[in-house]
């Protein structure tokens, strides 16, 4: 097992997080002193999952 894979680094270094979704999770991380950026997320492509799947294929 290599020692420098991203997983191993995750366990050795402080977490630096990006939160996408429930804002409470970002706040809980912040309360623990974790660096976190919260993404103010909204459903892409007007919330239409089918349209999103098509867009993902096209882009």
């Amino acid at each position: 097992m290599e020692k420098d894979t991203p997983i191993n680094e995750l366990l050795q270094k402080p977490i630096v997080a990006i939160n996408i979704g429930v804002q409470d999770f970002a706040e809980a991380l912040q309360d623990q002193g974790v660096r976190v950026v919260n993404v103010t997320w909204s459903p892409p492509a007007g919330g239409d999952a089918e349209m999103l799947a098509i867009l993902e294929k096209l882009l």
Partner: protein
Amino acid sequence: MLTESIVLPNRYLDSVFLMRVAKRLAGEPGIIQAAVVMATPKNLQVLADAGYAGVDTLGASVNDLVVSLQAETREGARAVLDSMDDWLQRDSGPVGATMVRTLDQALNAQPASNLAVVSVPGEFAAGEARSALESGLNVFLFSDNVSIEDELSLKEMAREKGLIVMGPDCGTSIIGGAGIGFANVVRRGPIGVIGASGTGIQEVTTLVHRWGSGISHAIGIGGRDLSDAIGGISALQAIDALEADPATSVIVLLSKPPGKKTRSLIDERIAQCSKPVVTCYLGILEAQPAGNGSATYTRNLDAAASAAVKLAGGDTGADGVETQETVSTDSASVDSVSIERALLMPGQRYIRGVFAGGTLCYQAQQIIRDAGLTVRSNEPLEKGMKLEDSRRSTGHALVDMGADEFTRGYPHPMVDSSQRAERIIAEANDRQVAVLLLDIILGYSASADPAGELAPAIRQAKRLAEQRGGHLTVAASICGSPGDPQGLETQTERLRDAGAIVFSTGLKAAQFATAVVSGRDA
């Protein structure tokens, strides 16, 4: 009673926040019930079924927010709806300081990021997780309703890049002391935990803490990781990572029994591990050896935590296992079993469990089954033991109130206890019930006062039994650590004041419940 609703077009807010707003709205004078949801077809159907008249004909689409109030008067409802903008303002606090709308913007704002925490609705979750992996981020995937195909492709992609996907449907991880999702405040120490379930991780990590040791990391892998469809991709990566981690000296693996092929893969890997590995496959039927090489097999969460603490050289002195056990919150003894039994009326014979934690529900079924009793559940150990109707218990029955069928459109019982309180009363109305079995889960992101939310229902349930001339034993376990925001002692006191017998572990509460009904099931 009447229903008044409004549609707020193109307004997305996360479901946890919206449920909190709904709860506050329902506390307004003249408002009977309130719903605040994104207008997905599923959500609108749930509201229509719950009696919110006309919500399905508002013309709202999935990107719109719907607020619907059941009120005493139209004027009262309108007054609240007119001030909706104020209600929906969230105190964004410091996390709102950097306003970004996409993952790319977030990465620009914080290039050192190493983890994405994803909790968007299921149909979008795989896409967000994939983008995060492509950007070189590990992923904590809280969202459920991710297909098994998506899970497999995400995990294969992650493995290729040396990244890990924790989840989907991952409730808890603790990385380097930082709790992600529903996690407790536990001390750092030599024990690394890998868990397929959030509450399993919470129970073991808090027990390790309460028994004097600590946690290096706890890595959630999602409930399906050890199925043969996924083949334990994240579990195997987590074993590798914890084996390489200098802070970890003992590894614990918690899961339901793995798929057959995956079980051999995992067993082989554990046998080669240079660190001791404690496994706990809850619900497993076949006999297991006590150990094999570096592996120690256990059958419940308490045994797993205890074995790990001992393997890590747990001190049995002032702060160690034995001492902690004797000063634990447990109030059960042989005496209290006979006291409870003496108060029951003939015909009171069943255990009814109303759980917030799926794994604690599952473990309790195992205890009751091992005692030779037949126990049913909406999430049964074996298919044949499934409750015919999840909303109506028969015989010994344990209900996992966190299962999808109860959380569609409603908050999870770890966040809000309303549905559990109702179910407690429903169970207490059955004169054959002898013991009510409950779990209280503390920690980050959980309800601020779960015991306080359940206390009135516990009191009322006991009163109902007493009015019939009987007695209701309430056995409750608390999963939490003294450092949790809710306060372990305060929560314990609230339960005791309501008349519950409080246990420090789910296992002990289930064992107590089983002892109380033993021999009454004829």
